């Protein structure tokens, strides 16, 4: 042991090392646009470098009812297609597997499998425009290949059929986000013991929890239990617009402390009828939760009306231009569009790897925990 100790650095050397930048220190942000150019022009330049990772698309259900469609050449029956996503600089898109209300129990599991199959079939049919991504790194790779990364989720909690084995099977099929609401174990009353076990198993697998539409009790419990960052795929500020899925300021502050991510939907119902209204929400969220905790969620093809000038997936530059007019820094916009989603996906991945070292797959049953 003595000779090992001889190799210890002296105190001064240790101090000198501390002065060096740590391996995880933030790299300084390097602006990509000319600060004197027109806002819309700047928006395009910034988005080209930091594309939008859009948190919610209703495409799977919308496409399911079309007899024929071609997303690569352009598809007027929906709000999202490859040309418009390129125009709007969408680099990644979460494809919702949510089912219409009234489907739960056994049909929900089967219907979710069908939704998953549909997304994979659509992606395979559009190899020049779309590619499936399962991790943050893959999403970046796909973007660098000039394609739009398709991420699977959110799915509704009913898709689990109250079984952790089914959760694991869905994860194996690519599911990465699950919305915790509308089931006995994640209801208005909050998370039950089984609900917490589901969340822990999601952490172990790397499935993100989506809390949009979840009750305040569920949200708070999820903040406390989840080891990975949590998501709100479609929530804005309730202080500006009273909608049940929008978040009050106290929850937003807690979200900021928990380093989660609130993705603001571009819907007239939740954010208001104009681009300025959406920007107001983003301003508010940035102030209350912090710039690392805000994201965007187009919510196209989900059957809701959109603000003026944000009618489809090509319109993101208008929104970014508005933020530039409000003196948002480029670095803040880069986080809003792409960086925060990357962070959350990576956080889920890291958590999963760490948890898998410590935990076996859970065999908990709802009947045992919730009785």
């Amino acid at each position, binding site marked *: 042991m003595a000779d090992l100790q001889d190799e210890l650095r002296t105190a001064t050397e240790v101090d000198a090392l501390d002065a060096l930048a740590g391996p995880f220190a933030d790299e300084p942000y390097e602006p990509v646009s000319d600060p004197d150019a027109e806002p819309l022009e700047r928006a395009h330049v910034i988005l080209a470098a930091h594309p939008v990772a859009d948190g919610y698309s209703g495409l799977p259900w919308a496409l399911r009812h079309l007899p024929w469609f071609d997303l690569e050449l352009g598809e007027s029956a929906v709000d999202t297609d490859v040309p418009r996503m390129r125009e709007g600089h969408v680099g990644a898109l979460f494809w919702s597997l949510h089912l219409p209300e009234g489907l739960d129990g056994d049909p929900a599991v089967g219907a979710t499998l*069908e939704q998953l*199959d549909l997304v994979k079939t659509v992606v395979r049919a559009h190899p020049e425009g779309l590619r499936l991504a399962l991790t943050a790194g893959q999403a970046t790779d796909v973007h660098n290949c000039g394609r739009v990364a398709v991420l699977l989720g959110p799915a509704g909690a009913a898709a689990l059929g109250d079984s952790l084995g089914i959760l694991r*099977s869905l994860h194996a099929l690519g599911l990465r986000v699950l919305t915790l609401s509308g089931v006995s174990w994640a209801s208005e009353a909050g998370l039950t013991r089984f609900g917490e076990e589901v969340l822990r198993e999601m952490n172990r697998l790397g499935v993100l929890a989506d809390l949009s539409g979840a009750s305040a009790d569920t949200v708070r419990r999820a903040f406390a239990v989840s080891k990975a960052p949590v998501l709100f795929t479609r929530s804005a500020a309730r202080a500006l617009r009273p909608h049940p899925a929008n978040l009050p300021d106290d929850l937003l502050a807690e979200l900021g402390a928990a380093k989660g991510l609130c993705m603001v939907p571009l819907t007239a119902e939740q954010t208001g009828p104009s681009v300025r209204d959406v920007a107001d929400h983003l301003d508010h969220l940035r102030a209350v939760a912090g710039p690392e905790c805000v994201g965007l969620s187009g919510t196209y093809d989900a059957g809701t009306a959109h603000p003026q000038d944000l009618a489809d997936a090509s319109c993101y530059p208008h929104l970014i231009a508005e933020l530039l007019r409000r003196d948002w820094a480029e670095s803040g916009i880069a986080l809003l569009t792409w960086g925060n989603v990357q962070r959350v996906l990576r956080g889920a991945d890291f958590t999963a790897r760490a948890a898998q070292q410590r935990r076996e797959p859970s065999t908990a049953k709802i009947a045992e925990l919730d009785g």
Partner: protein
Amino acid sequence: MASLDEARELLREFPVVDGHNDLPWALREQVRYDLDARDIATSQAAHLHTDIPRLREGGVGAQYWSVYVRSDLPDAVPATLEQIDCVRQLLARYPRDLRPAFTAADMEAARDEGRIASLMGAEGGHSIANSLATLRALYALGVRYMTLTHNDNIAWADSATDEPGVGGLSAFGRAVVREMNREGMLVDLSHVAATTMGDALDATMAPVIFSHSSSRAVCNHPRNIPDDVLERLPGNGGMAMVTFVPKFVLQAAVDWTAAADENMRAHGFHHLATTPGAMKVHRAYEEQNPRPVATVSTVADHLDHMREVTGIDHLGIGGDYDGTAFTPDGLNDVSGYPNLIAELLDRGWSRSDLAKLTWQNAVRVLGAAEDVARDLQTTRGPSNATIESLDG
């Protein structure tokens, strides 16, 4: 004894590919997937036919784990996903012994690494709930064959152990077969009615398998394969994997089971009832009428006959361990395969014949299904045909 040594030596080079093992269902029923309670790295002889030491002793090189779920319950799809999760957990727990396998090349790689290639088979079309998308999801999760029915008819296919329904395969049933061909999932014709076997052989473009069925000419039971169907296998390129279940392979056991079931019904019980009262009646009957015992030789008789009818290139083994309460003498659990090989050596089967029986045929058949799928995928997209549109 010499032939047993030779059998073991042969199995080291050409291990057994077994077509059907119900370990996942046994784990579900016995311990609700608590895999700590049934650690198969150690002997589970008290509870199960299957554990890793006995698989090794039996010379098993590849196993199709059945992700069977009951066909008389409404929640087949969710339960199938849980069964698949069980297999995946086993693979994660025992990586030194079990290797995930999805292709013929994976099977060869597992053999080279000295691990047991682990594949999955679904048992019954009820597991896809009339949805081709769900079929593709099962394929994506690793399922490489699907038995078209279990003991009961389904809406698009007739079972061997049910009354005639659609008379074989319906139009949607044929679409299921074609979609399985396109994905590269083997069509398994164990459990199905002879009419369904014929329709499936007409519809399929890839080799079919019988994952666990024996010869109807040797022992007349509907779960076995008639000779005229066996005769079609060379043209199809598929294979019949002989099963060991005594009540299918030994005529005396077939008759005994029928009489025992009749006795149960006479006492007012369902023939599969396991309530204490039913078990008491059953035990009393068994004391009066000793259960006939199948042996290694019984199974070898089936193989001899099937070989005459279909040829050595179309035979395999599918023990159905942990899916049956009783097993033949000498084939009591998964360590028993060398006894069967030794018996066949004694009957004059050559080493190259036995290599085909144990290993080569099964690897060839899966590889052929992959080739057909690759071809079909260049010309055909995934089908979303529905049972309503095809069967009306």
